[in-house]
């Protein structure tokens, strides 16, 4: 995905000129520009990013200390050893910022409540894709100052094992991109419930709690009891956290890794479609007063 985006950079530049001259936004150029805008906006909040990194690391230290002690104490701890459990802890901390799993509500929540979303419908771009593009830009920006340092600090203190083949990193990168997109599409779908319910904070919190748990943030999905793992795998949540961690840390490799990424792609399509259906229905229901 990323390769495509960069390959079309020149095209995007050319398109931008078109956009300005003719005012007819051409599909890809607009979303590329929105992604860049999302990146730039996030880059303004430098202290926030440092704060995020700091907090990620404190939680990482505590989690790593407990998990490493648990691996030492247990004979078999979900198939993890000290290196791989370290990778699990620090990669999950690193991905938190990008996936925005525990983050504040996305802008759309307030825009639906206030009725500003009507303006979004008037814009000549697809509502879902434009929000997604902006968020992908934001996520890319959090990954460098928040994600990478988490991994480096984790490697320097507790140690973590990473794969050695370039293929694993390539698949890992694709997996992370799919995870970020999926996480946003889920948040987007949850936000759309606001068309029918006045206050969705309770539903959002519910989503955060159930989602992060089933995604494997607190304990790896591999360590769930069988019945709970079956439930988790029937939801998109493991694809948001456990899958990119497994792919990036080399826990799954070869055919298994491809299947994991394919499952992520499947969920991106399903939740993306669900979002579009909800958006269409919400648009019909929307009633904004005043002028």
């Amino acid at each position: 995905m990323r390769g495509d985006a960069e390959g079309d950079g020149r095209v995007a530049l050319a398109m931008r000129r078109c956009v300005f001259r003719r005012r007819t936004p051409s599909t890809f150029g607009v979303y590329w520009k929105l992604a860049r805008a999302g990146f730039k906006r996030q880059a303004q909040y430098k202290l926030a990013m440092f704060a995020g990194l700091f907090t990620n690391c404190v939680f990482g230290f505590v989690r790593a200390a407990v998990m490493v002690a648990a691996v030492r104490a247990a004979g078999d701890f979900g198939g993890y050893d000290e290196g791989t459990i370290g990778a699990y802890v620090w990669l999950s901390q690193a991905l938190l910022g990008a996936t925005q799993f525990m983050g504040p509500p996305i802008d759309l929540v307030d825009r639906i409540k206030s009725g500003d979303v009507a303006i979004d419908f008037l814009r000549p771009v697809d509502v879902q894709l434009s929000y997604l593009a902006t968020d992908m830009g934001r996520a890319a920006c959090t990954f460098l100052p928040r994600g990478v340092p988490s991994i480096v600090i984790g490697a320097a203190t507790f140690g973590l094992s990473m794969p050695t083949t370039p293929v694993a990193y390539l698949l890992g990168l694709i997996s992370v991109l799919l995870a970020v997109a999926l996480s946003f599409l889920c948040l987007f779908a949850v936000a759309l419930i606001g068309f029918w319910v006045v206050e969705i904070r309770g539903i959002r919190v519910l989503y955060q709690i159930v989602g992060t748990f089933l995604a494997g943030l607190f304990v790896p999905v591999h360590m769930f009891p069988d019945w709970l793992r079956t439930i988790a795998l029937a939801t998109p949540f493991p694809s948001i956290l456990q899958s990119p961690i497994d792919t990036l840390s080399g826990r799954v490799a070869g055919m298994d890794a491809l299947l994991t990424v394919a499952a992520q792609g499947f969920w991106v399509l399903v939740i993306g479609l669900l979002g579009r259906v909800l958006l269409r229905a919400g648009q019909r229901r929307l009633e904004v007063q005043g002028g």
Partner: protein
Amino acid sequence: MAEPDSARIVAGTWFTPYLAVLRSRVKAQQVYRLSFATEVFSAFLIGLVEFAEVWVIFHNVGTLGGLDTNAALLLFGLSNTSFALAQVLVGHLDSLPAMIRMGTLDAYHLRPQPLLLQLITSDISLRRLARAAVAVIVLGVGLWRNEIDWGIAPVTLIVITLISGIALFCGLFVCAAGLQFFLIDGAELTNSFTYGGSFAAMQPASVFPAPLKLLFGFAIPVAFTAYVPTIALLGLPGPPLLPAWSAWLTPVAAAWVWLLAFAAWRIGTRHYQGGGG
């Protein structure tokens, strides 16, 4: 003599205005019934999920840091009861950065009442009682399943621990609020010791490497809210840095946090120049 009496009834005590605000907040939260129900349910689930994490780990390991599964119940029950109740009381201080940014904090400055007391009594999060309920139940089961040498001492220790624990976590929230005057955009930084503190409190501190032991045993002494009292109740020795007898020093730990909290609050409010506009 009747007149001053009735005047006093109308005017009430110094706490009456705070009580009026709190009462309105309690009422307001129950207006959107579906929303309130989902929030209570969510808070309940938070408690459950936090417990599930501890349970899955101990279920796989058996004994971690000298504590078995039964001791883990006690550890979780003590730390989470204190934290959840502290959150009910002062958890809403978390919204201070938004108030500073929006300028709504200035309204509080106009009233002739102490700012911190106003903010603390400006809201109460009833939904979080559901989280506390999970913790209290786990604590009850923990007290029942462990072999505790019951007497006056353990009961006193539990009462002191819970009161000091709630005070300690409240202090951490106030500390965080004081720092928000400087951080604003970096508000998440304080999560590292409020929510991070709560998270660290429910782990057996014996597994921490020395720097973390110093951090959570002395600088931000959350280990005193649960781990140290747990080993004291069970008669376990504990690590050299945190011996079991020090469980009786939990009020000192809470006092230390409140000292930090008052300092942070004082520096923060003096630094604040108003929202402008």
